[in-house]
């Protein structure tokens, strides 16, 4: 390879590796903050400050969903299959919100009684795509 081209190749490698290192350092520094939500286990381990809005994510525990009659208020439990957090919310839930399905809640955590007052509920969809008929047949409906 001609010398000038080899030098240009070094320039290319230098640009790519230096920007990779720069971005990598930023990502390492931000690591925890890039995560969209805390799991219940992480929350119990290092309970964040009170009066600071955070996101918590996990599964809606089966059988825990409880709608208060004559209001939009709902209570349910978010679990990561190890720890649990009780969530209170008042408002309209997204279509995909279901028991045993993924959820991300934004709100305030109260460490004293392990409860979470949410002001926003988002449904987390998984990567499974199945035809309706097949699932109904499997479940024997």
């Amino acid at each position, binding site marked *: 390879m001609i010398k000038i081209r080899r030098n240009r190749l070094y320039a*290319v490698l230098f640009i790519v590796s230096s920007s990779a290192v720069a971005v990598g350092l930023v990502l390492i520094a931000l690591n925890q903050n890039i995560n*969209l939500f805390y799991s219940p286990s992480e929350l119990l381990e290092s309970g964040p400050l009170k009066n600071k809005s955070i996101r918590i*994510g996990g599964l809606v525990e089966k059988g825990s969903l409880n709608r208060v009659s004559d209001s939009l208020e709902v209570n349910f439990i978010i679990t990561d299959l190890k720890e649990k957090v009780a969530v209170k919310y008042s408002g309209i839930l997204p279509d*995909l919100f279901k028991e045993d399905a993924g959820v991300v809640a934004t709100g305030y955590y109260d460490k004293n009684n392990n409860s979470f007052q949410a002001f*926003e509920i*988002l449904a987390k*969809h998984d990567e499974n795509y199945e035809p*309706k008929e097949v699932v109904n047949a499997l479940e024997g409906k």
Partner: protein
Amino acid sequence: MSKILKKFITFYHKLGSYPWFYKFSGIAIPYVAFISLIPLFIGLGWGIFYSPTDYKQGDVYRIIYMHVPAASVSQSIYYTMTIAAIVSMIWRMKMAGIFIKSMAPIGASFTFLALISGSIWGQPTWGTWWIWDARLTSTLVLFIFYIAIISLYSSFSEKKSADQAVSILTLVGAVNLPIIKKSVDWWNTLHQPSSIKLTESSTISLEMLYPLLLSIIGFYLIVLLSGLMAMRAEIAKREINKEWFKSL
């Protein structure tokens, strides 16, 4: 082996020649246009009208037939631009500069389509149009890089220095590509992991997967078509006063 290598090298040198590419693309464009329509129409038509309804999301899942192909090509275009940037920096091949200049607006359009279609899907399924999770944010960064490449290019009056500057910026932006790909595995995000898997069985049923693969192929062919057209136009723009172009 050396014969194949020689042929490849000849092809590579031909690629660098404006008259050859102008002639070749003029012949190829109508064929590519015709071939690209077939998988695109079958894929989208099958996906939107005939594939089964999803058990959880209902019919809104059909946005996948635009969203996934658009997101896929938006990243692939940047990969090819990165290769062109390396070629342009080391060998100063002018055609590589033309390639980056022509592909950047196409990449920006498909990234925009991926962001918008994802947003329209996110509102009914997640309950929000936008969230600053790692996948969505890194895709937005990709879009911004495309826009930056387009505007950096247009800020130069001299093509040669424009090609070099744009190559450097393209290389810097390439760091973002593995981040987009791995964001859903490295961090917890609202965006789900990929349903189409290369090494294990996919988590999307085959009746939904086949039309999706067809529309992905269709999108790639449309990108090829618009790339050829854009590069041809850019060659005409740069060479308009040259002898070979006038004699056409």
